[in-house]
C-alpha cells in the first residue's frame, strides 16, 4: 500500500502541476518582480526626483501646500517619502455635495525638497506587476479567486512533491549535468528542496491573505452574516472626534511624528490623515509604516487633536491569532526587507518560478521521448509545448516590451499607461502565435534571443530617451536607477546564454531533444 500511496501522490503532483503550471509561472514571475515594484516605478517615472529629506521637512511642506490649496477639504491624506518611495504625495477629499455621498478626491505629487508639484509620465510602473500577480487583469473578484485557487494547487503540488520525492536529502547531492532529462529532474529537485521553506511560506501566506474572501464560512456562522462587524473587530478603527463647527488653526504637524515614534518605540510614520483640517476639532491620525517590522498590522495608528496636539487614542496591540496572520501577510509582502533581504526574496522568488518552469519542461520531455523518432508530435504534446514556450520565454519578452513601451510611447499620449499595459499583452499574444508557427526549438531560441536583445538594450534605450542613463546615475551613486539598468543588462546576458545553450543542444541528435534551458531564463528575468 505504501508504494501505491506514493504513486498516487506522484500522479496528483504531475497533473495539478501541468494544468496550473503556466498560470503559476506567470504569477510567480510577476510576483517576484513586484518585490522591486517601487524601484521599477521609479525607473518608469524618472522625472520624479529621488531625494533624501527628513520626514519632518517634507511634512511641513505638505502642510503648507495643503493649507494653500485645500483649506476647506474634509480630509487630507499625506504619504511621506521613504527610502524606496521617493515621492511625497498629498490627497484631499472635498466636502460631499450631498449628505451621504463620497467627496471627490484630488491627488498631487510634490517634490519633497521644494514642495512644488511634480508631474511624472503616466504609467502604472511596478504596480502593474504587483496587481497582475493576484488580479490577473481580470475584473474583481475573479482574478483574486483564480490566483487563490492557483495558490491552493501550488500548496498541493508542494506537499505531493515532498511525498513523492522520498530520498529528499540524498538526492539533493546528486546533480547529473549534461544528462538531458535527468539533469532537469535533478534541477527541479534541487531548486525545490533548497528553498523549500520559502516555497511553503509564500504559498501558504497567499492563502492567508485572501482567507476571508475564499473561506468566509466561519465569519458568516459566528457573526450571523455580519461581515462588517468582523472586520471592525479585526481592524479596530481609530475613533475620530465629530466636527465642532468652529474654525480652528491647525498646529504644525511635524512634531507629532516624534511623539508617534515614542508611542511605537521608534516606529516610522507612513501616512497621516487629517480630518476636518480647518475645524477646532481637527484630528490627525498617524499610521505606522509597514516596513517597520515583519508583522503586518494595517490598523496600527495613533490619533492626536490637530489644534491642541493632545493624544486622543492609540490602537491596541494585536491579539495572537491576528499577529500570526499578520506575520504571514508581512512575510509574503516583504515590505520590511532591507536591500540584502530584498535581493534574497527576489532570488528565492525566481527559484520558485524555476521550480514551476522545470516541472513543465520535465512533463513534456518525458512524453516527447516516446515520439522522438516520428516526425509529427501528437496534438496534446504540441499544445503543451506551445504553452510552455509562450508562458516562459514569451512572458519575458512581454516584460521587456512593457519597459520599452514606457520609454518609447510619447509622454503626452492619452491613455498612456493603458497602452503600456496593452503592449505587454499584445507582445505576449504574439509570442503564442510565434510559438504555434515555428518548430519548438526554433521558437525557444528565437524568443529567448529576442528577450535577450530587448533586455540588453534597455540601458541604451534609457540613455537615448532620458538624461538618467548609466553615465550620470553611476557617478552620482543613484543606485535605484543604475541598479535597474544593470539588472536588465545582466538578465539580458543570461537570456542570451540560455538561447545559445538551447541552440547548441538542438544540434545534438534527437535523444536529448528536450534540453532547453528556460530554467536559466526565469532565474534572471528581471
Amino acid at each position, binding site marked *: 500500500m505504501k508504494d501505491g*500511496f506514493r*504513486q*498516487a*501522490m506522484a*500522479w*496528483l503532483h504531475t497533473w495539478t502541476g501541468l494544468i496550473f503550471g503556466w498560470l503559476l509561472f506567470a504569477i510567480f514571475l510577476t510576483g517576484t518582480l513586484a518585490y522591486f515594484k517601487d524601484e521599477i516605478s521609479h525607473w518608469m517615472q524618472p522625472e520624479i526626483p529621488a531625494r533624501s529629506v527628513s520626514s519632518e521637512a517634507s511634512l511641513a511642506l505638505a502642510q503648507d501646500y495643503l493649507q494653500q490649496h485645500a483649506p476647506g477639504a474634509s480630509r487630507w491624506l499625506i504619504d511621506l517619502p521613504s527610502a524606496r518611495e521617493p515621492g511625497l504625495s498629498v490627497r484631499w477629499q472635498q466636502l460631499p455635495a450631498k449628505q451621504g455621498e463620497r467627496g471627490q478626491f484630488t491627488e498631487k505629487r510634490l517634490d519633497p525638497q521644494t514642495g512644488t508639484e511634480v508631474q511624472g509620465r503616466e504609467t502604472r510602473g511596478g504596480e502593474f506587476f504587483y496587481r497582475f500577480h493576484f488580479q490577473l487583469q481580470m475584473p474583481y473578484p475573479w482574478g483574486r479567486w483564480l490566483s487563490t485557487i492557483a495558490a*491552493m494547487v501550488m*500548496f*498541493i503540488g508542494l*506537499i*505531493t512533491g515532498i511525498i513523492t520525492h522520498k530520498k529528499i536529502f540524498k538526492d539533493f547531492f546528486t546533480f547529473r549535468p549534461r544528462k538531458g532529462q535527468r539533469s532537469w529532474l535533478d534541477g527541479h529537485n534541487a531548486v525545490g528542496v533548497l528553498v523549500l521553506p520559502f516555497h511553503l511560506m509564500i504559498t*501558504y501566506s497567499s*492563502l*492567508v491573505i485572501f*482567507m*476571508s474572501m475564499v*473561506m468566509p*464560512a*466561519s*465569519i458568516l*456562522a*459566528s*457573526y450571523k452574516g455580519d461581515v462588517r462587524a*468582523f472586520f471592525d*473587530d*479585526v481592524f479596530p478603527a481609530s475613533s475620530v472626534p465629530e466636527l465642532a463647527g468652529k474654525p480652528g488653526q491647525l498646529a504644525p504637524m511635524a512634531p507629532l511624528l516624534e511623539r508617534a515614534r515614542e508611542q511605537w518605540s521608534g516606529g516610522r510614520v507612513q501616512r497621516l490623515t487629517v480630518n476636518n483640517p480647518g475645524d477646532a476639532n481637527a484630528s490627525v491620525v498617524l499610521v505606522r509604516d509597514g516596513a517597520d517590522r515583519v508583522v503586518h498590522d494595517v490598523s496600527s495608528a495613533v490619533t492626536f487633536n490637530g489644534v491642541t496636539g493632545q493624544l486622543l487614542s492609540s490602537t491596541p496591540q494585536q*491579539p*495572537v*491569532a*491576528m499577529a*500570526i*496572520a499578520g506575520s*504571514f501577510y508581512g512575510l509574503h509582502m516583504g515590505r520590511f526587507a532591507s536591500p540584502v533581504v530584498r535581493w534574497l526574496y527576489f532570488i528565492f522568488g525566481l527559484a520558485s518560478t524555476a521550480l514551476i518552469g522545470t516541472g513543465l519542461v520535465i512533463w513534456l520531455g518525458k512524453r516527447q521521448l516516446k515520439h522522438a523518432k516520428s516526425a509529427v508530435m501528437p496534438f496534446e504534446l504540441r499544445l503543451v509545448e506551445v504553452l510552455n514556450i509562450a508562458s516562459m520565454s514569451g512572458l519575458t519578452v512581454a516584460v521587456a516590451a512593457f519597459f520599452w513601451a514606457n520609454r518609447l510611447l510619447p509622454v503626452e499620449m492619452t491613455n498612456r499607461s493603458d497602452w503600456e499595459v496593452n503592449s505587454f499583452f499584445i507582445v505576449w499574444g504574439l509570442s503564442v502565435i510565434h510559438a504555434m508557427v515555428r518548430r519548438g526549438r526554433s521558437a525557444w531560441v528565437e524568443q529567448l534571443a529576442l528577450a535577450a536583445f530587448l533586455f540588453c538594450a534597455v540601458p541604451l534605450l534609457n540613455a537615448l530617451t532620458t538624461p538618467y542613463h548609466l553615465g550620470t546615475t553611476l557617478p552620482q551613486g543613484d543606485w535605484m536607477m543604475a541598479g535597474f539598468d544593470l539588472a536588465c543588462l545582466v538578465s539580458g546576458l543570461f537570456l542570451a546564454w540560455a538561447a545559445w545553450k538551447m541552440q547548441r543542444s538542438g544540434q545534438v541528435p534527437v535523444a536529448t531533444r528536450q534540453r532547453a534551458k528556460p530554467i536559466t531564463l526565469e532565474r534572471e528575468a528581471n
Partner: protein
Amino acid sequence: MKVKTRSLPVSYRLAVTSRVLAAVVGGYVVAALASVSLTMWLPMPRAEAVVTGMMTSFLVYLCAVLWCFACRSAWQAWLGVIVPSGVLAALSGVAYWLGQS
C-alpha cells in the same frame, strides 16, 4: 492510477472525474465546516477564533484532497469527505445551539 493515457477505459476516466469532484467540492465543504466548528469551539474571543479557523481550514483542505487521491476507490474518496462533513456539521450545530440557549 498506473494506467497509461492511451486507450483508457471509460470507467477509469469516470472514477478520476469523481475523485476530482470529491477533492475540489467535498474538500472545500470539509474545510469550511472545520473552520466553523473550530471557531465555535475554540475558547477565544470571537474574531481570533474566526481567524484561527480560517487559517487552519487550508490544511484541512489539503488533507482532504490528498485523501481523495490516496484512497483505493472513488467511493472511498466520497465517503472520506462526507463522513467528516457530517461530524463537523453536527459539532458546529451543537455549538450553535448551545450558544443560542
